[in-house]
């Protein structure tokens, strides 16, 4: 069975500081991993996925199969990055389901 672990429930940093949100996964197949973000009073939205290897809003995430990790990083946090971040693992092909971690609430202080 697949599992996603986000060890930090809360993370607080100052504006301009680097931020890393941790995500570890457990899955017997080839993982497809995503980061979703939920800003205050907004819906869950996709931030980035590992297969597209892109940087969105300055965030990047690298899949490390050896460490079974998919940590989300940003070199210089901004106040508008304050949100709930969820790591999710997909399984099932086109009709895939997402297995979410518990989420990390990031607060970026001025």
């Amino acid at each position, binding site marked *: 069975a697949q599992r996603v672990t986000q060890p930090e429930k809360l993370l607080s940093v100052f504006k301009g500081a680097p931020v890393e949100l941790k995500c570890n996964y457990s899955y017997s197949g080839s993982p497809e991993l995503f980061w*979703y973000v939920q800003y205050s009073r907004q819906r869950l939205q996709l931030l980035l996925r590992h297969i597209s290897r892109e940087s969105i809003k300055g965030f990047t995430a690298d899949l490390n199969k050896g460490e079974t990790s998919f940590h989300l990083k940003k070199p210089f946090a901004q106040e508008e990055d304050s949100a709930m971040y969820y790591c999710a693992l997909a399984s099932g092909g086109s009709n895939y389901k997402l297995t979410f971690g518990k989420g990390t609430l990031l607060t970026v202080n001025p």
Partner: protein
Amino acid sequence: EPEVTQTPSHQVTQMGQEVILRCVPISNHLYFYWYRQILGQKVEFLVSFYNNEISEKSEIFDDQFSVERPDGSNFTLKIRSTKLEDSAMYFCASSGSLSYNEQFFGPGTRLTVL
């Protein structure tokens, strides 16, 4: 930009009552999902739906739950006899046809069972 919509935003019901949560997925999407999030817990997969039938369902999705696409636009989740532990935020999502295409989420329906 097209969005997934859900109604109502908040539903309060008595234990044992039936509820129907409604979703309008993005119009050209083919795959539909329900997830739920109990307060303070993780978002959990309930069911996926494609080509007018359930593709996969979780252990949570027992006989009390059913899904339907009654017309070309709506996608509903019915809970036949609600329990206190069904109180949660229920999210609908939809995605297109490409493998691991982005799932677009609705704003959620908060269900409170008294």
